[in-house]
């Protein structure tokens, strides 16, 4: 009789839950752990790259993706669903923003756009929710959080900030780290983890995280956290790290253009990861 009332996969259960979303979260909680830590001058995203066979060519697969030059993303859960979301995130970046304003969206706006895509899968017919949680890390231009009035390099902008009396946006720049769940809800974090060992990883991060962390420290902590949870060997092939750091003008591919700023987000090479691991 119960199945008589199962009109669709996106119907409330009598207890007020959407069980499909819970199942999607279960998929996430079976996924490989991924984590993110926000530092004062950047953000680190890290995850384990598990391969089922030694024959897999690990160097040509990647779980951390660039969405805009200043925003990167990692996941825990179902790989194929993630790929679809990366495609959609990159697309909305342009259709909803760059092609309108000729600039890339701030992190929060992108997070909201991706969250909408995921929410719609919980309310539409004929679809299932995405079986992934995301960590989205990005850097926004504007006044960085620790800048105080009349103290730093941007007194002009600070005065304007007081004048307009607005919060966030252009006036609130710097790093941000968000988690997006299959339900479409999202949370801003200083540091967090998703996936199989999320709980223990978060406990570890709670102990290790301090205010005023620098990016290099954050990468160190990220690797220590990963070490606690990782199942296999830790090396440049099995650990993937993405960072949002200072602009890398080298990555522009050209030089001599005034005002051109390089991307802040990049995925570290296996050699770079290896170097960090040896210093652990």
């Amino acid at each position, binding site marked *: 009789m119960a199945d008589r009332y199962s009109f669709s996969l996106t119907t409330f259960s009598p207890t007020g839950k959407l069980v499909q979303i819970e199942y999607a979260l279960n998929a996430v909680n079976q996924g490989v752990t991924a984590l993110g830590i926000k530092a004062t001058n950047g953000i680190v995203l890290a995850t384990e790259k598990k391969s089922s066979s030694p024959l897999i060519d690990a160097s040509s697969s990647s779980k951390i993706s660039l969405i805009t030059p200043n925003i990167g993303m990692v996941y825990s859960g179902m790989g194929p669903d993630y790929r679809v979301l990366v495609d959609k995130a990159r697309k909305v970046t342009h259709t909803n923003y760059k092609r309108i304003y*000729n*600039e890339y969206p*701030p992190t929060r706006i992108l997070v909201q756009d991706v969250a909408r895509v995921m929410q719609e899968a919980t309310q539409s017919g004929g679809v299932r929710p995405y079986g992934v949680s995301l960590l989205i890390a990005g850097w926004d231009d504007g006044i960085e959080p620790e800048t105080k009035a009349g103290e730093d390099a941007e007194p*002009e*902008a600070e005065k*304007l900030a007081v004048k*307009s009396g*607005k919060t*966030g946006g252009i006036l609130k720049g710097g790093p941000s780290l968000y988690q997006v769940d299959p339900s479409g809800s999202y949370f801003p974090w200083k540091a967090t983890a998703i996936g199989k060992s999320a709980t223990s990883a978060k406990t570890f991060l709670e102990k290790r995280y301090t205010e005023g962390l620098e990016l290099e420290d954050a990468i160190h902590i990220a690797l220590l956290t990963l070490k606690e949870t990782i199942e296999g060997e830790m090396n440049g092939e099995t650990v993937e790290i993405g960072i949002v750091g200072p602009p890398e003008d080298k990555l522009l591919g050209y030089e001599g253009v005034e005002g051109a700023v390089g991307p802040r987000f990049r995925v570290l090479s296996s050699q770079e990861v290896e170097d960090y691991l040896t210093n652990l």
Partner: protein
Amino acid sequence: MSSPFSINGGAAVAMVGKDCVAIACDLRLGLQSLTVSNNYPKIFPYGDVYLGLTGLATDISTVSDLLRYKVNMYRLREERAISPQTLANLVSSSLYERRFGPYFVSPVIAGLNHKDGKPFICGFDSIGCIDFAKDFIVSGTASDQLFGMCEGLWEPDLGPDELFETISQALLSAVDRDALSGWGAHVYIIEKDKVTKRLLKGRQD
């Protein structure tokens, strides 16, 4: 004569000064040679950025309303005021969206950059091609006359008061040589923490 750009008449101009910008428009609304209104302003504020619109009156309303909607949505979504550069790109993409059935307007933007306070002005054609200028932007049925006046009166690094005099004289003199614009003017002087709006009476003939 029956070009949509010159049915209703009107003129607008923007100028860069030292740490300030100015934007001004005339007040006439006409139907060919007949003046219908002598109080039809063509400058619209979007936060602390200003947009001047000349051309077909119906499209002045349509475009200014459309942008008010888009800028309000932007402000709510992003919790910040729109910057002049971003507004310029928004105007451009909105106009180009109507590439094959354009709004018959010639927009002009003036504002100060939020981050560094640098003056910003630009103009557009009716399908959204942006004209970035370091000195001045003119638009409307008196644009030829405005080019001449601005070329003659404008100089770099004018202070707010000198800039007001310059833009006012440029506009007033230009519209006196155009049958389709005039009947007074609105002038905005935009400074870092102050915007001054002045109403110029101008010739009423």
